């Protein structure tokens, strides 16, 4: 089952990019399937079997199965191996979780349905039936070899379990192979269950609680015999790998075993399969629980002087990297695989920091993990695969990849390197090409533009155009009536101007009175300033101008006689009194105009009043033609 990413079939780069579109979706909605199988269908009571649970999914990571409680087996995690493949745009992840199962009862035993939950739906395996049979040695002894049992009794009598204190006949120990360790450095915990008496029921193992430690099972269970203080004991040994989380104290709590002991020994504790034997025998015994001692550990701080590339890895590793293909076009995907192999806590191992690659667009990194537990040492291989998209054409270099770890054996940091990689990038097709990408059970065409949303903006102000547009749009609507009003006013003024240009005499006629009034006011000002001569002169000019405007005759050609004649002609309804008044005022003003020294304030004031009265009189008599 164990494969690595280097065995992945060559992928079409564009599909790889598309595949990344779905990485962020995680497992929540991914399609899953789960299956389980055992390496044997029949197992002896003192033997064990391998259970492999395989979870298949169409995303980069799949959830772990949730093993149900199995009272008829002791279960130990043995490892996992992962395989990711991207073929024709489809991601397929397969993770095989391996467990070692030690049977606890004879007869047909069932491995229950094992579920896996993707956040929305639950998938489960079929039940598996296992036949648990007596061990061959046990069977042959029952058939006609009572000597062994007798020998056992003899040993028991010799060893004196009958003389032993009950607490000495059955006990549990826990010890670690180190008392101090660095974070993520492996410490092996050994828990041994000793018995010098036969057991009539299944000893149930209750693992300890851990503080500031991560635990990983180290199956299988080892059985053996030993002599302690002259007494012969059978023992069963369970090992667990521990990894310190952070600097400080760590502790292993007490483990427990619950066992049933015969009042009278009928089973040989020195039988290699004695732990399973109690299931084959009948009869009830006394239930006893034994607890192990606690163990304390000290997690040491990592020494100073870690390289810049150090990201917490502790153990002993090797590094390799590969790039494929070595020729690509801009916009096409490349597969950069970095493999870390060795011993250490690979589960928590983080990907080496990718170097600066401005010529490439760097996508999320996928990882696959294979764990082995050979010789009780946790190790294996972790492969980090990063998809790179060249941005520019030409000869490009992917810089050296650095990975460093702390070697607890040597007490020093080590830095490993891989690469650099040279690659030739040719000019690619235009971006935004449509690809057909099949995802899960629904195949549909999509147009990929990017693999994820773009990053947040750091622009603190909206664009000027937008701000101004916002302000302008917020102005009240009624303000827009002003330009319309201005246009209407302008059009009216233009028409008026045009009319005036076309009818100048009429305008002079209409404006005559207003003009005369203004001149009267000016004359009044002169009089006030003690210049009656000037006031009279203004009044004279004003009268001529007024008569000229009303008669339509130019001032230069106007005499009293002509003016009166024109008035009679144009305004037949004008009274003789008005004409007399015009003549009288004209003569008086003309006299003063030519001899201003004769003008006194009183005469000037009289003439002003007379002129004002004449204007009122004439305005009534002179109607528009």
């Amino acid at each position: 089952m164990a494969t690595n990413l280097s065995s992945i079939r060559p992928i079409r780069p564009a599909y790889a990019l598309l595949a990344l579109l779905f990485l962020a979706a995680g497992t929540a909605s991914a399609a899953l399937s789960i299956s389980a199988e055992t390496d044997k269908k029949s197992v002896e009571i003192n033997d064990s079997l391998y259970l492999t649970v395989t979870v298949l999914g169409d995303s980069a990571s799949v959830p772990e199965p949730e093993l149900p409680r199995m009272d008829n087996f002791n279960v130990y995690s043995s490892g996992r191996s992962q395989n990711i493949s991207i073929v024709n745009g489809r991601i397929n992840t397969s993770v095989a979780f391996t467990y070692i199962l030690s049977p606890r009862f004879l007869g047909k035993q069932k491995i229950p349905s094992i579920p896996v939950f993707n956040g929305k739906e639950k998938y489960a395996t079929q039940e598996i039936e296992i036949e648990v049979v007596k061990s061959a040695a046990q069977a042959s002894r029952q058939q006609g070899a009572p000597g062994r049992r007798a020998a056992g009794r003899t040993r028991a009598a010799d060893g004196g379990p009958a003389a032993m204190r009950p607490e000495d006949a059955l006990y549990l120990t826990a010890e670690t192979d180190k008392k101090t360790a660095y974070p993520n450095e492996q410490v092996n915990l050994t828990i041994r269950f000793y018995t010098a008496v036969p057991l009539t029921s299944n000893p149930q193992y209750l693992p300890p609680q851990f503080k500031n430690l991560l635990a990983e099972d180290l199956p299988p269970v080892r059985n053996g015999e030993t002599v302690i203080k002259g007494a012969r004991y059978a023992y069963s040994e369970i090992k667990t790998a521990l990894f310190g989380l952070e600097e400080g104290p760590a502790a292993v709590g007490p483990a427990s075993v619950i066992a049933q002991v015969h009042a009278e020994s009928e089973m040989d504790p020195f039988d290699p399969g004695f732990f399973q034997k109690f299931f084959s025998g009948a009869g009830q015994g006394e239930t006893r629980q034994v607890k192990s001692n606690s163990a304390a550990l000290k997690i040491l701080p990592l020494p100073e002087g870690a390289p810049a590339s150090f990201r917490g890895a502790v153990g002993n590793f090797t590094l390799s990297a590969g790039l494929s293909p070595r020729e690509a076009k801009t916009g096409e995907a490349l597969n950069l695989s970095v493999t870390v192999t060795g011993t250490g806590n690979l589960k928590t191992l983080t990907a080496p920091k990718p170097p600066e690659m401005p010529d490439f667009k760097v996508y999320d990194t996928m990882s696959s993990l294979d764990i082995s537990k050979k010789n009780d040492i946790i190790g294996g291989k972790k492969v980090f695969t990063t998809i790179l998209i060249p941005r520019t054409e030409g000869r490009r270099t992917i810089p050296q990849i650095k990975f460093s770890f702390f070697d607890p054996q040597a007490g020093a940091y080590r830095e490993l390197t891989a690469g650099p990689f040279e690659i030739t990038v040719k000019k690619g097709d235009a971006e935004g090409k449509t690809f057909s990408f099949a995802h899960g059970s629904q195949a549909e065409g999509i147009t990929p533009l990017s693999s994820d949303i773009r990053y947040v903006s750091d622009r603190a102000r909206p664009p000027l155009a937008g701000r101004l547009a916002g302000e302008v749009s917020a102005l009240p609507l009624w303000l827009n009536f002003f330009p319309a009003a201005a246009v209407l006013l302008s059009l009216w003024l233009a028409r008026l101007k045009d009319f005036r240009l076309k009818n100048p005499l009429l305008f002079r006629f209409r404006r005559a009175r207003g003009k005369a009034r203004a001149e009267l006011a000016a004359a009044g000002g002169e009089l006030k300033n003690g210049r009656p001569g000037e006031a009279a002169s203004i009044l004279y000019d004003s009268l001529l101008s007024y008569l000229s405007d009303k008669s339509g005759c130019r001032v230069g050609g106007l005499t009293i006689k002509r003016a009166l004649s024109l008035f009679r002609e144009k305004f037949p309804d004008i009274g003789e009194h008005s004409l007399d008044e015009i003549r009288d005022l004209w003569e008086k003003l003309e006299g003063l105009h030519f001899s201003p020294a004769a003008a006194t304030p009183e005469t000037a004031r009289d003439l002003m009043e007379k002129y004002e009265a004449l204007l009122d009189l004439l305005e009534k008599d002179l109607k528009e033609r």
Partner: protein
Amino acid sequence: MKKKILFALFALFPVSGAGAADRNSLAGYNDLYKNGSYQAALEGYKEITSKEPYDPYAFYNAGNAYFRLNKPGPAILCYCKAFRLDPRDPDIRANLDFALKRTGQTLVPEGMPRALHYVYYFLSDLELKAAITLFWWLGCLLLSVYALKTDLRGKLKRALTASGLLFAGTLLWFIARSSSPFNGAAVITAEGSARLLSGPGESFKAYATLPEARLVKILDDTDDNYYEVGIPREGIKGWVQKTAAEKI
């Protein structure tokens, strides 16, 4: 001269920059986003949008935070608001397009050339309104001068025609934009989906479900509790609760 004009513009709109987001605060919110504290970052972005309703980037950032929080409805709502304020911004376009695609929708309608779509949305709604206002004032000013100054009529004729055409063009553009899917529209923000009822009340039959983040046209919003909405693509209409959809 350019500086003087800019100064005059700022003097004309003294409040323009008053509500602009403080650069340090924004950097703080972006740091929260960078470190994965999307909810905290979102609160900051929302604070900016409440102070600065014309800031497309604040809506864009809020959309990103919602997207990371796996809330596609509010994310698309924020992206739509940002897009309406600054449709030319490539980041806003890209994220709106991306989010719409993730929910089975598209920014550029099928069969429509991308260039035409870009031109159609080259100006924001506010910019179009402002342009109409500007060309209206300019046209009226020129017409007034044209009417009063007979001696300048020859020179003003072209400018007057141009301003009239621009006014008419922007007005027609604005009218054409009324059919935009973002105009008079809402986004389904209810988590999961919202029920499309055959009438404005719980007693009416629910005959369809609208998935979260779906864009719908608001046909009538006069009811206190329900929007009457249309779904043009499917050619159906119905009522959704106002709490399940939010206007863009």
